[in-house]
């Protein structure tokens, strides 16, 4: 399979259960994400969007279909190969942050770099730079339990960025956050978008559209609508929309 897109999926399928209880979580999905695009995959809970994200990141394997990240074919890759790929080319952001409770913010951020074999000194430098970028340099020595939800998610984002991944995959990144913390995360995503970071966000929070180049609506395991959000609605229609 060839193509210019960074992340490509062809005929990807994954199901749960069997017989009459068979659920097609992801049903023959085709997807191409060009480098530098911010893609939001939206849909009601249970539509299969999280499963799709896990398949794209190699956290789960598809029952059928192919997935490519740059020149790496993910769906048939060995567990070790996947670990290496995640270490170097994929950054994950989760709804429940998944930080290590026993490590401080900066230690959580440098986790990925240390796993990738960087020297402790360089890993620490990089982690501090990233924490500064997400505005948490002064919280570097705090444990996650001493951080707010939004701060924790920003630490998680910094960790995802630590090895300059080809793509950042985010699963409901604002799902556990209040509206102020959601704004913090959105601002960060907007900054990533302008720096050309490829980003795939799965969410049912429509606010993510604010930072997306493209929005895909998913229903029952397949794509219902795929729209580029080019152009700007004029302010009058926004204001008058519900008035």
């Amino acid at each position, binding site marked *: 399979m060839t193509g210019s897109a960074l992340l490509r999926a062809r005929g990807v399928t994954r199901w749960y259960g069997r017989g009459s209880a068979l659920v097609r979580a992801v049903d023959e999905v085709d997807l191409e994400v060009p480098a530098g695009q911010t893609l939001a995959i939206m849909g009601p809970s249970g539509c299969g969007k999280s499963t799709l994200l*896990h398949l794209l990141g190699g*956290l*789960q394997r598809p029952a059928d279909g192919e997935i490519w990240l740059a020149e790496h074919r993910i769906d048939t890759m060995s*567990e*070790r190969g996947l*670990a*290496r*790929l*995640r*270490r*170097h080319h*994929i950054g*994950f952001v*989760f709804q*429940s942050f*998944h930080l*290590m*409770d*026993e*490590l401080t913010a900066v*230690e959580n951020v440098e*986790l*990925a*770099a*240390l*796993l*990738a*074999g*960087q*020297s*402790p000194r360089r*890993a620490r430098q990089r982690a501090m730079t990233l924490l500064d970028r997400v505005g948490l340099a002064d919280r570097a020595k705090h444990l996650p339990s001493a951080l707010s939800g939004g701060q924790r998610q920003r630490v998680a984002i910094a*960790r995802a960025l630590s090895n300059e991944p080809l793509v950042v995959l985010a699963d409901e990144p604002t799902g556990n956050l209040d509206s102020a913390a959601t704004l913090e995360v959105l601002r960060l995503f907007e900054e990533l978008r302008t720096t050309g970071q490829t980003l795939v966000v799965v969410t049912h929070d429509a606010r993510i559209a604010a930072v997306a180049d493209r929005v895909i609506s998913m229903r029952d395991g397949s794509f219902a609508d795929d729209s580029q959000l080019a152009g700007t609605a004029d302010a009058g229609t926004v204001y008058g929309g519900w008035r």
Partner: protein
Amino acid sequence: MAGRLLLVCRLMVRDLRRRRTETVLLLLLAISAATATLTLGLALNNALAQPYERTRAATAGPDVVATPGATGAEALAALAPLAAAPGVTAHSGPYPMAYLMLTARGKTVPAVVQGRDNSSAALDRPAVTAGTWVRPGGVVFEPTFANALGVHIGDTVDINGHPLRVVGTAVTAARAVYPSADWRAHAGSPLTESAGLVWVDSSQIGALAGARPLSYTLNLRYADPRASTSFTHKRTDGIEYSSWVGIAEADGRLVKPARLALMVGSWLLTALAVASVANIVAGRVVDQRRRVGLLKAVGAGPAMIAAVHLAEYLVIGLAAAGAGLAAGWLAAPALTSPGAGLLGSTGTHPPALRTVLAATVLALAIAAAAALAPVLRAATTDTVDALADAATPPRRRGWRVWLSRRMPTALLIGVRINARRPRRVRFVMVNTLITTTGLAALLMGLAQDRHVRLGETELVNPRSTRTLQAMLLVIVVLCVLALINAVVSTWTAVLDARQPLAVARTLGATPAQVTVGMAVAQLLPAIPGVALGIPAGIGLYLITSMGDIQYAPASWMYALALTVLFTVAVLTAIPALAATRRPVADALQSTPT
């Protein structure tokens, strides 16, 4: 590489620090107890062989002791050619000996009395362990014998009607210790009786013996070691020969049952330690599952995950091995030294390499087995499932739930709580089973006749005392470990059941019903544990003991069963009662979702 190493160490240290009490203390304690008993067992193993040898070396013990059946001048004549026989490199004696009756503290017992003086001997120079060596008017006791009689230096004893002052205690390798000193009604008799050994000044022995003729004994050393190791006892030409091998064996019999008790005890302790380690580890699996998933998500491979977990458990294992070794080694002298009748306490010597290795291997094996679960899981589970943090949902056992509908409230609550946590139920059962087994075996030991007949008098048998001491030691460790296990398991059970209990209370259950329900939940699995443990303990005792065995009274066993069950009930009721004091709403809210 340095980075990854740093990561492994950091994750290990942080995790250990975070879960201090539960993991570190309990795991450490459980594994330490197992290694400590193993060390003790091995130490006693050495104690069996080495002290005799040490004593033999220190006292220039003979290879063979020759005692003619004849008495008086006839005996001396029979012994005379032996000292000059070919192959004999050294000899001492002949020393006069008499089989007399000794009275101390109102007890009259048979004693083997040997006459010695201050002149230096080539062989068999008894080592004085307390007081001084023989002098006219004084008597020196073999320490085990002194202990059994309860005599001390300065006491006055009476030998064949003659009062003598106890001036010291000494050990020898030329004759087995009390009660195997082989007393005879008359010299040359093949029938021996239990007795102890004492020394008196050789100038006095004739007067002490009075009308009884004196026997003589000659110590010999041969150039060829096989001349003494090929037999234990033999009788040729009216002369009885005892080799050092036979004497060592007789001395060894003294600690053999104690050693066996320790060995069996260390199996029990190891089983208990493994059970509690398994329980602790299983409790951590949920947490570790998430950790594993998280590490996988940021790109850690199976090898890295294995390293992180193994490192942690291996550190605990090593620490436990050290603690266990130290504890076992310090406890060993308590079992070997008091009145051992032999030289040398093990505590003053560094543990043998074999012991250190065995204890370390045991500790590491338990720890590695504990680490294995999450590591295997890491290799097999989907990262997503691991991250989902899905603790295996409490299983519903249909029939138990059905059954519980037909019961009083308290029982109903208890049964339902158990139905949710089959693992803990098994653990409570194993815990009570092992503890009861040990206690029942101890009761059997207590029920035995621990006396030995010396003539017309019954004296304490050092062998039984020592065995009982060993059993007590094991049982105390066992009980401490079991108690800690019970506290931990009941406490977590109560924490775990807080929400269902709170729900039960919103439905109208009283705090008393809830508390009883919790106690019932723990008692139900404890009952089969106790019921199986008592016959298991008796069986264990029967298998490992020799000779006539008396059964402990049934009432003791009933009391044991009730005590164990009562302890379990109380241990549960306390935290449950504490939990019911909290308002229901708090309990409902504080439950993590």
